[in-house]
Structures are given as structure tokens and as C-alpha cells.
């Protein structure tokens, strides 16, 4: 069972109190985008074995969206952070780098 700390209200929320929102840090391609970009935005997702960034909503609690960094293999949670970001913050990346040496994501590590 996954337990994530909501960074908005600070509650340690059980997975069943949360709604999953899929992969985090997608770039929105809308009107005027190329067909390829729009296709990738709609359908292409990472499916990593290891570190993954996800969107979650504390739907049975404060109702706010947030991001979580976790490992899809061990279910280890590296941390949660604000949804108002376009990339994982340095603090989260440092935790991951320490626990998963050599890890990188879109050129960041």
C-alpha cells in the first residue's frame, strides 16, 4: 500500500484517499501544434522500471493536486512536491541521486 504525504496539507494520505493523475511534467501541445507533437502529448508515456514522476490528487482530503517521485519497482517514495513545477525540484533529485546512483531524467540528475 502506497502512502504519500500531501505537500499541500501535510497529511500522510493512504493510496485509497488519493486519485491518480498519470505521468507528471508533460508538455501540453494543443491548437497549432504539429500532429506528431499532439499525438505524443495524448498517447506517448514513459513506462520506466524504476524512478517515476506522477501526478496525484488528494481527493478525499484537501482536494489539491501534487506530484510524487517514486520507484515503480520497490514502491519506495522519494518525496512529494508542488504541482506548480515543470520539473522535479533539486531537493527531490538529490534524494533520488543518492538512492539510485547514475539515475537521470530528461537530462537532469
Amino acid at each position, binding site marked *: 500500500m502506497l502512502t504519500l504525504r500531501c505537500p499541500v496539507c501535510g497529511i500522510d494520505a493512504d493510496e485509497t484517499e488519493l486519485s491518480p493523475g498519470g505521468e507528471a511534467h508533460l508538455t501540453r501541445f494543443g491548437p497549432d501544434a504539429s500532429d506528431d507533437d499532439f499525438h505524443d502529448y495524448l498517447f506517448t508515456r514513459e513506462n520506466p522500471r524504476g524512478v517515476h514522476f506522477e501526478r496525484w490528487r488528494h481527493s*478525499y*482530503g*484537501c482536494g489539491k493536486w501534487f506530484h510524487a517521485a517514486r520507484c515503480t519497482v520497490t514502491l519506495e517514495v522519494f518525496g512529494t512536491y508542488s504541482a506548480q513545477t515543470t520539473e522535479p525540484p533539486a531537493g527531490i533529485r538529490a534524494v533520488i541521486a543518492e538512492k539510485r546512483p547514475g539515475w537521470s531524467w530528461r537530462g537532469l540528475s
Partner: protein
Amino acid sequence: MSDATDIHGGGGARVSGLADLRATGPQGMIVLRGDLADPGLRTAVGAVYAAAWPGAHGVSFAPPRGLCWMSPDEMLLLGPKDAVADDLAQLTAALGDQHALAVDVSDARCAFALSGPAAREVLAKLTPADLSPQAFGPGRIRRSRLAQVPAAFWMAEDGTTIHIVVFRSVAQYAWDLLVGATDPKAPVGLRQG
């Protein structure tokens, strides 16, 4: 009118088992949305509600009114049902042109109370929330779920009564769950701290 099965109207429904469960009847509720960290908002609420400002995850009462922290931008204001219109008018006037919203939601939710030494144990059967005395002491509120429906519950200052509010559309479901959880033949036997 109230009777032994009425959870909606006048309240009065009551079941005793592992804990004492009752429907507490009509409750005035005003939802306030706005930035709770804003001192202006706090001043406006203070003009109408005498209760001390609760911190995050807290409730605060000055009977017959009270304040329940629901999220960083939501406060549930409790009061007598027949005084809601006046409270709301005063609050709206006090808020002035601040960026906030106050609405009468008295009919949106149903209120129950669960009391007795095993109240924590009974509620813990239905929710994943941490109800240990360390995490859920007097004056603490938690929004979570009861089985399949959302609920908010807070521990009263006496430390033995848990007040529960659920949406009225699922009140019967939540009540039936709680009745089942208080069945005297179904104790969990956790030590009550």
C-alpha cells in the same frame, strides 16, 4: 419531529453498541473559501465567530459556533441552523470585497456523533486515517473516507466524542456502516490510549 430512525430531519437516531452513535440533527454550516493565511480573512471571520482561529487540521469552538479547518483554502463554519442566514449576511458584510466566497451549505451534509471509549476503534474500521491519540487528539480534524464515501471527522475537546459529517446523499450509507461498526459482537480489542 425526531424519532429513533431519523438521521436527516430532526436527528434523534441513536444506536448503542461498542460506542454510542447518534444523529445530531440540523446543523448550520457555512463554507468559506479563500486564503486562510490571509489576515484580512481571519479578521472578517473573527467579527462574526468568537472561536479562536484554528490552525491547520484543527477545530475551534465557542458554543454554539465553531470553526473547522478543511484545507488551506477552506473553512467550515458551524452554528445554529436558524441563525445561518444572519451569520452569513454578517460574514459577507465583514468580508467586503476580499477575494473569498461564503455560502450556506447547511443542507449539504449530515452530522453524526460517536462517543465512548471505543469510538476511535469503531471509526478506524471504516477509514484509513490515523486515529491514534497521537495523530488525532482533541481539537483535530481529518478529512478522509468512510469505506466508499468522503467524510470529515473531528475529536471534541472532551477527547471521547468524534463528530462526523458526510454528504447528505450518502448519509444513510454512512450511518449503516457506523451501525455495523458499533456492533457489540465485533470488537477489535485495540488498546485505547
